[in-house]
């Protein structure tokens, strides 16, 4: 973990809150936590549209896209992820993660996680605390290192 925190992998993450959602405090906490773990963070803030997330990943060369949602609006947007991502020719290796409160009203992770994975996300954290979610991301990266990290010999 120590090497990770020192930013040994120095990976780029695009993050932000999707749709018409203004939960800025959670967004700021996400930014701080990712930075503390050694990622280079591109925080698009609240009220961000799906196209802006993908466009930011292209402009920055980010390896990870981490979308957050608190008002449950993500579901409406997430349905378009596969279709929209397919239009980009350079995002095949982009690691897609989503977290927060991913449904309106009550819902259980057993039903929600597979649904979002089917929408095109590699990692889904429904009502999981921030640090646990970011630990999940690190475990995923260790198991599936992005191609850019393999070629750089990290």
């Amino acid at each position, binding site marked *: 973990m120590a090497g990770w925190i020192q930013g040994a992998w120095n990976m780029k993450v695009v993050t932000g809150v999707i749709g018409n959602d203004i939960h800025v405090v959670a967004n700021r906490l996400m930014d701080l936590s990712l930075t503390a773990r050694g990622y280079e963070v*591109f925080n*698009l803030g609240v*009220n*961000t549209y799906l*196209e*802006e997330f*993908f*466009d*930011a990943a*292209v*402009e*920055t*060369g980010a390896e990870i896209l981490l979308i957050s949602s608190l008002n449950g609006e993500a579901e409406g947007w997430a349905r378009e992820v596969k279709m929209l991502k397919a239009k*980009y*020719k*350079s995002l095949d290796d982009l690691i897609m993660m989503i977290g927060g409160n991913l449904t309106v009203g009550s819902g259980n992770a057993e039903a929600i996680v597979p649904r979002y994975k089917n929408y095109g996300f590699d990692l889904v954290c429904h009502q999981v605390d921030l640090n646990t979610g970011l630990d999940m991301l690190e475990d995923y990266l260790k198991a599936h290192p992005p191609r850019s990290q393999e070629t750089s010999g990290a």
Partner: protein
Amino acid sequence: MSAQNDKLLIDIGSTYFKVSTPESIEQHFRDFNKQILDDLMHKCGDTVKRFDAQDIHICSSANGGLSTLIIGTTQSYSLKYATNIAFNAGINIIDSIVFQDIEDYSIPSDLIDVVIIVGGIDSNGGQFDQRLMNYLSKLQYSNVVYVGNAPDAALVKAAVDKLVVLPNIIDDRLHIVETHLKDYLTNLYQQDIEGKEDIKHLYEITSNQIYPTPYVVNKSLPLMHDFFSVTDPFILLDIGGATTDVHYSKDLVSDNIVTEQGHDRIVFKKLGVFKSRQSLIFTAENNEFAYELLMHLKVTENIYNEHSEKATRILMQLAIFLVLCKMSHYRPAYVTLKLLAMNSIVFTGGITKVLNTEDIEDVVAFFYRKILNSDHKPVTVLDTHYDIWTIGAKEHAKCQ
């Protein structure tokens, strides 16, 4: 010898020219059989002769501005930022191309004044490849500028003749950096104006730089509240003979662009009531509500073939409607404004000499009812004495 603070301000448009002294302002319809300078001296010679060359300040939009084609990597960042900078520098955009699909775009047949290449933050090279050079080799252009990521600059420069490389317009936090590209485009616009045979002669009467009119008008926007009863957010419409300029409060757009200025500009190059008359009519014929507007104004489509004062008035009313459509969700162009949040709508240019407040409010109300299903009524302000241009020109003259 003129007093130190006395300036003569001249604006050369495609249809009219305006001359402003500290005492008065006059407007004249241009005689297209004469050189601009000859026409100006014939109509306002006595006035011009009263001023020293260093006290005469001229701006012009008569050549319609420069054209640009932008090649960028994404719509939300590189293309959007470059488009924003180009519009604010007074440049007209012919097309914007997403690089990954560059092979699918057709090659414009017109000569492009300047091609802008942009994409990626500085730590993200490898955005461009041979496909860019292939496209550029088929394109006719006069200037080409690279404002993308730093690592790719050398590759592109090695392959593209006369490429100007400027600092990236996207910083490492994905924010816009305007200065370098805006200065470059503004200078290019000035050089273009100077190079125009007609405009070149105007340097016989002034020792100051001739600037693009939109650039000068932009200077007046922060001062609007001192001279007009305008409530933010507002838009300023300048419907001219050849083009229509719209300056708008940035509060009217949901944007990811963070800049210091409170206003942006967009231009509709082929929307005007004289030189671009046919194009305006064509746009109207393709708008299903335009017919209803003509009925509302109690005329028929035959008005398009008339050349009368009444026809000009109707065309101007149509132009207002079409511009508002282009700025709304109904016919989205480069920007979609939150028109229901707009509190004031300011009109300047020749339109204020032809239409009165009632004529304009009638069309604006029609637009809100038909397109936005609303009774919203922004306050109409008419700049009948060209104060906006005068304020901008004075501000600009102060800086020179």
